[in-house]
């Protein structure tokens, strides 16, 4: 073991053609795409956790792609567009539905253990908001299997170099062109810069800006903040998905597959309350796009209404309703939903075969993210983004469950190819990057050594999370949003006197938490501002003061840009409509 502290000012001459920040589904797929399509290029993945720890690992229910004869690309397109309340860019959705089956087959060839029909064909299951069975699954550990298959396949490509447990803190940009990334190697505390001709951000979502979320500790929106600070706009940040069924204390997700297999949502009186919210009539068996298989935004909103009527059940972790799987029987639960049973048993100490599962809506997914075009290009030359951190946008105002794993694959691959072809002809890094890198090193060293600040990281984080829940929850209003905007500005001010108690260079998780908090404050601000300015209700963005969708003014993306002084401006470029003009979203009828 190393006994002396390394010289923080020493930085290796690291340089690659393409650097990918993030080793989840999107990042790994992008890396393999570079390795396969441009074998002459050098490519590296940097990731703040080992790739197989990325949050893709926790995806449960499945991945959507048309493969069965009864299904069609057009239906997948329509489900996605109406699910997204017409805020999706239809050219991107067309490309997505076409590519998704090819990508999932590729994963099949790479060893993903997809669940099968008795005859050996890939099995599919229904999912919320989908009109056909088209969700491929690997029991209910789809993300886990997909991630490990990708990671293990990536090991085959010697060309892919990894920097594991390496935390990116800043994008180096010169004259509107990306030249690399600066960051910290966790084990040694070494501050390094990695030069690159193209950088792909695949850093995942930002659920941790909220107090109650299915998202892992690492989902702090780093890539969104990195791009935002480097001049790349963020798109549609106000659209935050609440998943209707999280376990009350932990926020652990009970997958939508539980409802797809036939689970029911029951209120205090044991009544399937969704029938009161224009979501169809209760049938004993699951019906596509109806009741429990409605879209997530509508189901989470129905919960709030039910709560207002006093028909939820109070607990020490807030109001809940029940998810009932008992009628599915032990065998179905064990073969189709083994992880659900495992999670309920281990974390809630109940057995869904015999007992009701307590659930409540929980922050789950970011529809918004780094603004990109269909190639993943993020508005700064050489910068790309893919996966949950990006907004292409195929998810519009509300993502359909099981669309995001294939999104990571489809657009991860595309961004990898685009970044590779950009890197092949891009000039080497500009000389001025060294100065930027030196500035960043000084900033980090100052933060690490700073004594005498007053604010604790954990206190600021808690206050930010409370402000987000109060201002940008399932239902929003101008007053609440304004209050939360002020609050987050105040927290940003207070962050300037944050105090670290840990000054060690070795695996300093307090330093990382502080940097993540700084990123989250940036992201939180962008969510609140975008939500405040969008004076309509669409998908997951519901304004009590503007309860209707307003296509006249807001059939448009919110593009928020950061000015150099930290202030912001929002533009509204139109949504791309190729063939399906806005209509009514219809479920259960």
């Amino acid at each position: 073991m190393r006994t002396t502290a390394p010289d923080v000012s020493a930085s290796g001459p690291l340089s690659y053609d393409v650097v990918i920040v993030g080793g989840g589904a999107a990042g790994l797929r992008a890396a393999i795409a570079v390795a396969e399509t441009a074998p002459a290029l050098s490519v590296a993945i940097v990731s703040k956790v080992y790739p197989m720890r990325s949050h893709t690992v926790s995806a449960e229910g499945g991945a959507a792609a048309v493969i069965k004869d009864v299904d069609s690309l057009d239906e997948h397109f329509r489900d996605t567009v109406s699910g997204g309340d017409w805020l999706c860019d239809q050219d991107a959705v067309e490309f997505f539905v076409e590519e998704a089956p090819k990508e999932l087959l590729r994963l099949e060839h790479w060893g993903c253990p997809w669940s099968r029909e008795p005859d050996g064909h890939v099995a599919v299951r229904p999912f919320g908001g989908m009109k056909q069975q088209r969700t491929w699954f690997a029991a209910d550990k789809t993300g886990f299997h997909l991630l490990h298959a990708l990671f293990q396949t990536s090991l085959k490509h010697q060309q892919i170099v990894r920097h594991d447990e390496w935390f990116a803190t800043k994008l180096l940009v010169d004259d509107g062109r990306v030249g690399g990334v600066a960051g910290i190697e966790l084990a040694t505390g070494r501050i390094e810069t990695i030069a690159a001709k193209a950088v792909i951000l695949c850093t995942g979502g930002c659920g941790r800006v909220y107090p109650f979320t299915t998202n892992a500790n690492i989902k702090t929106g780093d890539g969104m903040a990195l791009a935002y600070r480097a001049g790349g706009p963020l798109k549609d940040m106000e659209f935050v998905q609440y998943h209707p069924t999280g376990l009350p204390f932990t926020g652990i997700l009970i997958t939508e597959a539980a409802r797809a297999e036939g689970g029911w949502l029951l209120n205090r009186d044991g009544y399937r309350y969704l029938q009161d919210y224009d979501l169809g009539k209760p049938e004993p068996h699951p019906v596509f796009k109806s009741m429990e298989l409605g879209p997530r935004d509508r189901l989470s909103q129905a919960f709030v209404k039910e709560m207002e009527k006093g028909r939820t059940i109070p607990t020490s972790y807030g109001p809940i309703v029940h998810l009932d799987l008992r009628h599915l029987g032990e065998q179905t639960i064990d073969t189709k939903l083994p992880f659900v049973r495992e999670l309920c048993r281990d974390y809630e100490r109940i057995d869904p075969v015999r007992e009701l599962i307590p659930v409540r809506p929980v922050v789950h997914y970011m529809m918004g993210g780094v603004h990109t075009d269909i190639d993943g290009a993020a508005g700064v030359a050489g910068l790309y983004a893919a996966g949950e951190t990006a907004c292409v946008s195929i998810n519009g105002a509300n993502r359909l469950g099981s669309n995001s794993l294939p999104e990571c694959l489809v657009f991860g691959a595309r961004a990898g190819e685009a970044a590779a072809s950009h890197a092949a002809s891009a000039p080497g890094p500009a000389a001025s990057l060294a100065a930027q890198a030196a500035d960043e090193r000084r900033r980090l060293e100052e933060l690490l050594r700073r004594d005498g600040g007053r604010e604790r990281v954990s206190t600021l984080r808690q206050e930010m999370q409370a402000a987000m829940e109060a201002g940008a929850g399932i239902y929003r209003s101008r007053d609440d949003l304004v209050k939360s905007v002020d609050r987050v500005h105040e927290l940003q001010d207070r962050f300037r006197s944050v105090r670290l108690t840990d000054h060690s260079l070795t695996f300093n998780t307090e330093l990382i938490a502080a940097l993540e908090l700084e990123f989250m404050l940036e992201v939180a601000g962008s969510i609140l501002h975008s939500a405040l300015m969008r004076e309509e209700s669409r998908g997951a963005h519901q304004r009590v003061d503007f309860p209707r969708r307003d296509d006249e003014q807001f059939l448009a993306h919110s593009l928020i840009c950061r000015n150099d002084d930290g202030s912001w401006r929002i533009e509204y470029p139109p949504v791309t409509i190729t063939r399906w003009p806005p209509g009514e979203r219809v479920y259960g009828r």
Partner: protein
Amino acid sequence: MRTIALRVARYRPEDETEPTMQEYEVPLREDWAVLDGLNHIKDHLDGTLSYRWSCRMGICGSCGMTVNGEPKLTCGTFLTDYAPGPVTVEPLRNFPVVRDLVVDISDFMGKLPTVSPWIVDSEDAAPAEGEHLQTPEELDEYQQYSMCINCMLCYSACPVYGLDQDFLGPAAIALAQRYNLDSRDHGAHQRVDVLSAADGVWSCTFVGECTTACPKGVDPAGAIQRYKLTAATESVKSLLMPWGRRSDLPRPSGADQDNNAWSREVR
């Protein structure tokens, strides 16, 4: 409020030569895992404590530690099961300690690629156009071995690995078997060398601690036993058919050559 004492191993390599124990009182709540106790310490009592965690749902494999002497996922191990305490939390055994509860697993990360943990395509057939058919029974053959989350609890429990770090170890062998038994794979011959080398399956003395420790029911001990049987048959075959030595077998194209050089690259 009821509380429970957590005795936590601390080690700061810049200041200390030896680990020390530090005690903290944390709330004893019905639904708190050991990890929640550690997070309470980090957020409210002592910001300098370092440990890894992420998903807190038993699937990312980050949060393995030694709890009262046993390797555990701390996000799935509950404080009330140890009441009235104290609960001792130490880093996983058999690994170098980086800091506090964080261990260095680069040895395992380097071993992973040596077992070619990917589907090796057949040399004869063209790559499949559509899906490979695989019946649920064929899936069952390897599914258990595909459940590994790389949490390292089995390495921590393994007495052989404790003595000999060159031992390939339970999870790596189980993963090799996961691919060997997959009906889509044609790479078993490519994994023979590393599996049946001196540091491969034969190092295992079948103590079975790995299977006991595994939180995901992978049964690495079973994988090892099963491979020993295969390897025994293989070596008989190569005695009978000297021309069948693996080095003479045509190697499939791809990146399998010189896996060791690659593993040095991995950082």
